[in-house]
């Protein structure tokens, strides 16, 4: 499930009508209120009659037109690695700033200055704005990082979906700030993935980079995402279905090998900030949804942030085991993305209080060094690349298109009366 190669093979299997490797008939039943439900293990597979052919597991995942899922894998959908996408080289990051500063007179090692103190001084200097503020906490106080490299190139093939409609409509494109767009993996036009454009030349954000492993905390049970489908008359083709996105208030269930388990029960978080529903449709086995603002939890270093996605939508297909895989995409407010992924300015403790400054500073500065960027460089690069939610007052976009590659396993999603342990984090 975690391996993308079998996943792609599985998708092909669906389209070809092959039975999945699991070959297990499973019926998932979605509960609205934890009420009694029906079939769990049908005695025999359900026959399929129309194209595309789905596995029995997919057929059986629906009960009364409803099904639940838990996200088991989530990562930024990023394009080709730096070798292909960054002809001008990689972002120099903190290390580049230090090297540049060290060449200046002020950056020279002072007489009798111990090496350790010298290195510390260099590090603090490049993280400090001219006005003395820490650049990770106050990135606007610094200018753009001259060593920052963006992904360039209209012809790069990048996973994702067309968010602004520019691929098919020039009128729609006028609603966003101008930006280059990528090609989809199958050559489709207009893929909006400006976050990849910003971080694609940064070492930590390569497709297998450390920064793209944030799901680790999801697998420890710190946060999770649930999805529901309702009103599905035919999982192959249905012009109108309801798609729900929820924060998971239960830890994800794993096997002894730490692989996510299918058919576990999870309760949705009851706080409306972490719940969203929208309309969707299934065409030839491909599920897409209308834009809706969603918000999930994220935990790093025991600090909590929200993972926001405005105008979010999905494009997914069913996997042979009755799950889903595809793209979750939308626009992340630049300020929110900066806090989430770079700056930790407003990260909270589990009690909902602002996390200790030392922890926030250490985390933001530490990961900048480890992942190969500078805080203020990331901030200004995102502002430069922002392509969504134009502020009428300034004419500048405030959010950045973000695409996630996700996989979901069939699950039972219930409306739990229990409140999430993270309820204390909610302030709004």
């Amino acid at each position, binding site marked *: 499930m975690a391996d993308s190669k079998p996943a792609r093979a599985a998708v092909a299997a669906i389209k070809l009508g092959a*039975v999945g490797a699991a*070959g*297990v*008939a*499973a*019926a*998932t*039943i979605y*509960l609205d209120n*934890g009420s*009694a*439900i*029906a*079939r*769990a*293990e*049908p*005695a*025999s*597979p359900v026959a399929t009659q129309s194209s595309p052919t789905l596995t*029995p597991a997919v057929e059986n995942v629906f009960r009364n037109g409803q099904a639940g899922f838990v996200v088991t894998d989530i990562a930024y959908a990023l394009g080709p690695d730096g070798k292909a996408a960054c002809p001008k080289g990689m972002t120099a990051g903190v290390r580049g700033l230090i090297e540049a500063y060290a060449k200046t007179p002020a950056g020279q090692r002072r007489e009798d200055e111990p090496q350790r103190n010298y290195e510390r001084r260099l590090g603090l200097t490049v993280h400090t704005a001219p006005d003395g503020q820490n650049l990770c906490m106050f990135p606007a106080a610094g200018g753009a990082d001259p060593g920052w490299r963006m992904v360039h190139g209209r012809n790069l093939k990048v996973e994702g979906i067309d968010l602004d409609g520019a691929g098919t409509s020039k009128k729609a494109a006028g609603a966003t700030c101008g930006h280059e767009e990528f090609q989809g993996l199958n050559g489709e036009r207009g893929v909006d993935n400006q976050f990849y454009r910003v971080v694609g030349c940064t070492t930590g954000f390569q497709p297998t980079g450390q920064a793209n492993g944030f799901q680790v905390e999801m697998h420890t049970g710190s946060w999770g995402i649930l999805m529901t489908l309702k009103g599905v008359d035919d999982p192959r083709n249905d012009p109108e279905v309801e798609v729900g996105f929820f924060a998971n208030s*239960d830890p994800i*269930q794993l*096997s*002894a*090998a730490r*692989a996510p*388990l*299918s*058919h*576990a*029960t999870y*309760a949705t978080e009851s706080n409306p900030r972490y719940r969203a529903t929208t309309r969707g449709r299934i065409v030839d086995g491909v599920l897409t949804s209308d834009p809706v603002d969603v918000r999930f939890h994220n935990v790093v270093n025991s600090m909590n942030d929200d993972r926001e996605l405005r105008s979010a939508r999905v494009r997914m297909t069913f996997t042979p085991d009755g799950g889903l895989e595809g793209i979750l995409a939308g626009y992340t407010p630049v300020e929110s993305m900066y806090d989430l992924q770079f700056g930790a300015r407003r990260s909270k403790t589990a009690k909902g209080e602002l996390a200790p400054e030392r922890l926030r500073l250490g985390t933001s500065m530490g990961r900048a060094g480890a992942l190969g960027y500078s805080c203020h460089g990331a901030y200004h690069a995102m502002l430069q690349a922002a392509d969504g939610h134009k502020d009428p007052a300034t004419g500048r976009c405030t959010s950045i298109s973000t695409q996630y590659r996700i996989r979901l396993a069939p699950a*039972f999603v*219930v409306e*739990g009366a*229990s409140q999430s342990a993270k309820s204390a984090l909610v302030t709004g």
Partner: protein
Amino acid sequence: MAFIKFNGAFLRRAGLGACLAMAAGIGWANQSETTPSAPLAEPETPGGPLVMRRLTESQYRATIADVFAPDVPVTGRFERALREDGLIAVATSHGSMSAFSVEQYDVSARSIAAAITGEERRAQFVPCQPEAETKFDKACATKFVEQYGTRLFRRPLAAQERDRFVAVAKAAQQKLGGFYKGLEYALIGMLDSPQFLLRMDHAEPDPSRPGSIRLDGWSKATRLSYFLTNSTPDAELLRAAASGELHTHEGLSRQVDRLLASPRVAVAVRAFFWDMLQFDGFNDLFKDPTIYPGYTVAAAADAEEQTLRTVVSHLVREDGDYRALFTTKKTWVSRPLGILYRMPVATRNGWEQAEYPADSARSGILTDVSMLALHSHPGRSSPTLRGKSMREIFLCQKVPDPPANVNFSIVQDAVNRPGSTARMRLAEHNDNPVCAGCHKLTDPLGLTLENFDGSGGFRAKENGVSMDLSGALDGKEFEGPQGLGQALHDNPGVPACLVEKMYRSAVGREIASPEEPVLEYLLGRFQSARFRVPQLMRAIALSNSFYAVKEQPDTTPQRTVAVAKEGERS
């Protein structure tokens, strides 16, 4: 109402001979035979020998909880229980106590005694206060020893016993310098004593039958209490024992009905079925996590609990028909189990009652994950183990172990034989007539459960192939797990086996041939009570046979064959 005849001759027909007979085409005994009348009057029986029975782990823990408090720590480990002829309860009267076990009993005794006499809780447990901690208070020590000695030994202490433990208290105080330290060591001595660890039958002359003996009141109370509550006699039962009430039918009935009305009977039913269902096997159960990722440690623990909850709720709380355990759709589920059953479980931490869906292949405890996983291999199901367990657990039939030189390669090699099912592989394996005899007993039952994998999870196919789930029991053919459950429900050997096992568990020994009429009598009572287990327990507890003892050692050939070892895998 037709009456099921308890066919002892059938039950004696065990072992390889039975398998070979089957292989030769001889049908199993006429379990379905019925007779028109039920023997509702208890026959005379010679009784059994006086026995000493070691407390099981659950009895030890329950006893400590009842005598002191549920939160008193029992820190020692318990030796692996010996199972004999299908029951640990029977083996409690056999076997020796290892040095390890004695050591661990002492570990527990020390933890218990330290908690009881420690500064934090001594006011709760010590019934008196010494004049001074540094001075030995004989009266207080005597009161302490008498109070707990009576509860732990399940009878009043003889003066000599009492004085010995008081002397221990005094000696310990002198050496360790505190009155409560003295009490602590006196209590350790009592907890380490065989009089506590072993339930010893004591007999006295029977005034109603000169020249004969009977259990004394304390032994009767002990036998009754552990049978109906799986714990030590309570104060009321000890009072009845002291007054001689247990030797009268009215007095005994009063106590039996009192205990059966208490919630403790559920504990006893649970303990009996844990033993009968061989759930000690979970201690050794392992499943390959690669093959069965959903079979987690939590799921395994909950699987055991699920079946016991189902048994107790059906038999005790709902006063249900024992046979319906094989067909009921009602069950209990937890979140870890919901993954294996593919059922939603709204309750986040804990249990909720549920029903297997009407169109599910599951019904009855035979389709619980516990039974399916326990009698499977680590990486695959086993129709043979499942069939064998059903024969042995629910029909009291002994299926012998496979010969040492049998070749299992055909059966086990599922990986390299795509498209094969267990039925196909077993058919090839059974070309060997030595194997075929026993497999004809086991496989027709176990193959009907093949749509459940080795972890108890549902599967529609094996190796990509649809499975033939047909089976047969004693000439009755059926299809699939629900057919199997119904076949067991309808099989007269099933309640007869329960009667036999529960009686043997109650008396803690094998049964001699002359006692078979008692089983027939109890089976009649069970049937008259529409197979209600508490009513069967009442019939046993009120029967003369339950308490009957004879002075001379029993030289009658045992009617059941001891099983050398359980838990083999074939």
